């Protein structure tokens, strides 16, 4: 098997030599191999060659064709180059033109935006921007009990934002305003503040009412700040959800109301706690 392979390899090598016009040494080869190589040699000697006339005429024809192709390719390349140079000359080479174009585009964009918002026309343009609704802050007014006929307190609770990440500190600004015509005295200041789960109404954190008294003249406003760490009454992080900030009532006295009476209020603000 390997002998056959060697013989085949030698034959290919000898054939390469023959085709390259070299002499092949047939010494040591079998009769069979010698006769085969002899035939190959004779075959190579009988090969036809193209005439010089044909060689030259085809060459000149092909050269002409190739030259035409190259000329066309060159023209195409030049055309592309010209197009590009015109564009780059207009855009890149002149800084003044470049700045003018950029400025014109900026003006167009600004004008378009303003037009879309309806600045130049009474009717709104095609682009309608809806402002994000801010958290509703209910303003509760408390009617004075007994002989008082007008509301006594206006209570407002505000937070920096409506949605907080879980664990984030929440600063709540309370504003209490005496809307009555006489001075009132809050008998347990600050009032009790409850934070409740908006879904089930369960109180998660209660800040009990203070023991101090606080006078509030007519139309006077009093501010109070509370920082809630999102912990419930047992010191655990409350789960994400919606919560209300509530002052159920404020007990007060006044010259016309010497006995302390509660002025009911209610939910002052709503906040959402989201997963971090």
């Amino acid at each position, binding site marked *: 098997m390997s002998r056959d392979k060697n013989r*085949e*390899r030698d*034959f*290919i090598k000898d*054939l*390469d030599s023959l*085709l390259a016009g070299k002499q092949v040494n047939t010494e040591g080869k079998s009769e*069979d191999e010698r*006769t*085969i190589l*002899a*035939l*190959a040699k*004779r*075959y*190579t*000697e*009988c*090969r*036809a*060659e*193209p005439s010089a006339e*044909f*060689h030259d005429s*085809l*060459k000149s*024809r*092909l*050269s002409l*064709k*190739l*030259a035409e*192709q*190259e000329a066309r*390719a060159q023209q195409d390349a030049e055309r592309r180059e010209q197009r590009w140079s015109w564009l780059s000359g207009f855009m890149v080479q002149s800084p003044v033109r470049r700045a003018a174009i950029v400025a014109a585009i900026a003006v167009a964009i600004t004008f378009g935006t303003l037009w879309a918002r309806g600045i130049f026309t009474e009717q709104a343009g095609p682009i309608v921007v809806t402002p994000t609704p801010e958290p509703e802050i209910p303003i509760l007014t408390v009617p004075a009990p007994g002989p008082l006929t007008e509301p006594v307190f206006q209570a407002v609770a505000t937070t920096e934002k409506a949605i907080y990440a879980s664990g984030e500190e929440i600063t709540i600004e309370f504003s209490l305003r005496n809307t009555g015509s006489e001075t009132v005295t809050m008998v347990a200041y600050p009032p009790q503040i409850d934070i409740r789960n908006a879904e089930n109404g369960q109180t998660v954190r209660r800040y009990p009412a203070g023991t101090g008294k606080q006078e509030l003249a007519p139309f006077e406003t009093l501010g109070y700040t509370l920082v809630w760490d999102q912990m419930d009454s047992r010191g655990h992080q409350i789960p994400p959800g919606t919560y209300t900030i509530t002052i159920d009532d404020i007990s007060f006295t006044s010259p016309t109301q010497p006995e302390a009476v509660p002025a009911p209020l209610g939910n002052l603000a709503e906040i959402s706690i989201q997963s971090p």
Partner: protein
Amino acid sequence: MKVRGEEPSLSQTFADLYEEYLPRVFRYVKCRVNDVASAEDLTSSVFEKAVSNFARYNRDKAAFSTWIFTIARNTLTDYYRVEAGKKKQHVSLEEAEERPANIPSPPEELERKELAEKLSQCVAQLSPEEQEIIHLRFEAELTNREIAKIMGFSESNVGVKLYRAIRKMRDSLQRLEYVS
């Protein structure tokens, strides 16, 4: 003058390839059609196709030899398709190289023609596949590896087929010479 590192032009590259491959393509085509005029026409056609597509030829994908002989084979296939209806008379190598009648051939030339005729008959007795291998090896001077690529065989398979084909030719030639 060629500057170092400068790529030769398309024309120059093709001119070099033309010098190397024209004889090989011509010989290959001629032994397939057995007629000088047809061989010249077909060879012209092969090279014109090559020129038209030369800009798209990618040397990383295939050797030029593989590329040009694939064109040559396809051109011959088209030729045979057109010629299929015509009854072709066998034309020997000798007839194909016929000289004008008024120029006498020297004795060695006559002897060469006679041998060429006999070899042509020997090749004709081979199978079409063997004939193709003989033509690609001897006329086109392709290596076994290049033939393998063009014909879709393994390189060693081409070697075996080639060896057997030449042996058959030898036997045929010996019979012819014995008869003569």
